[in-house]
């Protein structure tokens, strides 16, 4: 029997306490992974939805806080198209629109010549014809949720649209998006000639210098902010607020979890004061006793982290399955997030064992042996 085997025997034969401690660590890890994953997923899903359309740079109105609040006049598009390095430019109008059953869906308006159409993977039906109006491409998820198929009608902001195709995008936002002609959405939202974003396709997408040159040239036109698609939400105050709130919830959950775990470890050690006295009486040094307690802390936090990862992944899937959340974000904890949280929990468990172990071994053997 070595220290690790001894620790396992102690934990196995104190099943209730061990399971409760492991669950404490697991809930802390799991809730952090889920909540922090949620906070990151908003940003990641928006980025992915733009990238799926082949957009290298995104242009939006400078200084508007709401994500869909600012508009850009379409007539700047020909001017931007002339900038060296720009391969193509297209505008997109976005809004949340009420549909048949009172549900709100994300509606996008694309111009007939938009390069976005080329990126739309069809699951069923066809793309709209260039001169066809009041037609819609419906994302696969929202089509499933609303029980729609190609050939059905869908109501957007009170007007009927014929569904000509069902798209099968990867990003959860695009899978829940209804795409109509830009002119139709402009008319319905009383925003003639306006788009929410401009998407720029660069001649050389990986060329950072080119991207910087194009960005500067567009920003020099005034009142526009240009960002790479992955940085689109970086300066958006509303998304920033959402991210901050969900991140804060994640950190609060983690903090509470940490306190719970530390308290559990502290109590687990202190209630064994007498045992520590016995170990001392049979010739165990303080260092050896601390090592044994820290090994137990390590095992508990390692198992807790493992269970926490499973809980975090399950929690993320659960959140994604809630329609009001899953329609806009797919909560997918990343491997780095899972790894970092698990490692942090184990390190914390080990460090958290040190304090109670130190407290416990500070007592004289006689006092420890007198402990009930």
């Amino acid at each position, binding site marked *: *029997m070595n*220290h690790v085997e*001894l620790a396992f*025997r*102690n934990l196995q*034969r*104190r099943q209730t306490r061990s399971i409760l401690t492991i669950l404490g660590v697991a809930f802390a890890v799991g809730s952090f992974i889920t909540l922090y994953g949620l906070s990151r997923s908003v940003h990641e899903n928006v980025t992915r939805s733009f990238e799926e359309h082949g957009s290298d740079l995104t242009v939006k109105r400078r200084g508007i806080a709401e994500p869909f609040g600012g508009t850009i006049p379409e007539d700047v598009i020909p001017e931007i198209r002339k900038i060296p390095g720009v391969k193509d430019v297209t505008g997109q109008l976005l809004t949340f629109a009420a549909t048949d059953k009172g549900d709100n869906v994300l509606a996008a308006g694309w111009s007939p010549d938009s390069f976005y159409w080329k990126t739309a993977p069809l699951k069923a039906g066809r793309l709209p014809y260039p001169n066809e109006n009041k037609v819609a491409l419906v994302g696969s998820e929202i089509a499933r949720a609303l029980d729609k198929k190609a050939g059905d009608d869908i109501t957007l902001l009170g007007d009927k649209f014929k569904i000509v195709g069902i798209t099968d995008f990867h990003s959860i936002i695009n899978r829940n998006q209804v795409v109509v002609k830009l002119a139709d959405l402009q008319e319905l939202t009383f925003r003639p000639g306006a788009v929410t974003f401009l998407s720029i396709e660069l001649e050389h997408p990986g060329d950072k210098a080119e991207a910087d040159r194009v960005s500067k040239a567009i920003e020099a036109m005034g009142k526009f902010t240009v960002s790479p698609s992955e940085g689109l939400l970086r300066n958006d105050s509303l998304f920033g607020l959402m991210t901050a709130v969900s991140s804060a919830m994640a950190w609060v959950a983690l903090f509470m979890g940490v306190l719970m775990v530390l308290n559990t470890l502290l109590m687990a050690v202190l209630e064994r004061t*007498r*045992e520590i006295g*016995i*170990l*001392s*009486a*049979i*010739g*165990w*040094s*303080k260092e*050896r006793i601390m090592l044994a307690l820290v090994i137990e802390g390590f095992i508990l936090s390692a198992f807790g982290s493992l269970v926490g990862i499973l809980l975090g992944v399950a929690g993320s899937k659960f959140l994604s399955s809630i329609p009001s959340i899953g329609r806009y974000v797919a909560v997918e904890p990343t491997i780095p997030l899972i790894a970092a949280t698990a490692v942090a929990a184990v390190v914390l468990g080990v460090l958290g064992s040190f304090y109670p172990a130190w407290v416990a071994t500070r007592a*004289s*053997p*006689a006092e420890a*042996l007198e402990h009930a």
Partner: protein
Amino acid sequence: MTAKDLLQLEHIGHAFDQGRIVALKDINLAFGESESAAILGASGSGKTTLILVMCGIRTPTRGVVRWRGEPVTTLKQWTDLRRSEIGIVFQDFNLFTTLTAAENVEVAMFGSPASGAERKRRVDRALDTVGLADRATHLPQELSGGERQRVAIARSIINDPKLILADEPTGNLDSKNAAAILDLLFDLQKARGSTLIMVSHAPALARRCARQINMKDGEVIDEQVTRAREEAL
């Protein structure tokens, strides 16, 4: 006191509660190798405090404890002695409830250089010596009081200590088990040539020891020595 003494207590005093309660007053005792001694006295006479001082579990507030003539002053010295030279048997057994009988014995060997196989062999032998070879895999709560004390004795002898200290080793046992445990302790002491110091308030038990040290109010008030010890001295 002689050069042959294993353990010497010089002017040992111990007080609790910032000096308000005096448990030991100027104790001077010496114990040689292979001898047996009983410390007798009523409750509160200081006998348990004295035995805890003898193994460093309690630090005296004055005086010096010597092991083979060398003063023992540091925690490390006491830890090393308890690991290899001093075995302790408590009245209430002090076994780990999460460990089997064999594991309770083996846990006292942590820190010894013995290999896993050697440890197992010694644990098996110790349990066999105390008559518990067939109870090795039982948890303490599955054992009787007498069996638990036998496990504690096996643990105390696992490192072949020179000194076995027993604090009321039969205090929680019925008369039949108590007699068996005492027989075991004295047999072990004789067979191994170790020194046995027992705390008791039972004179009948104490008469089996070569020395009887009587205590009252923290002081040694009387000491009776058998002829065998006198001759040894």
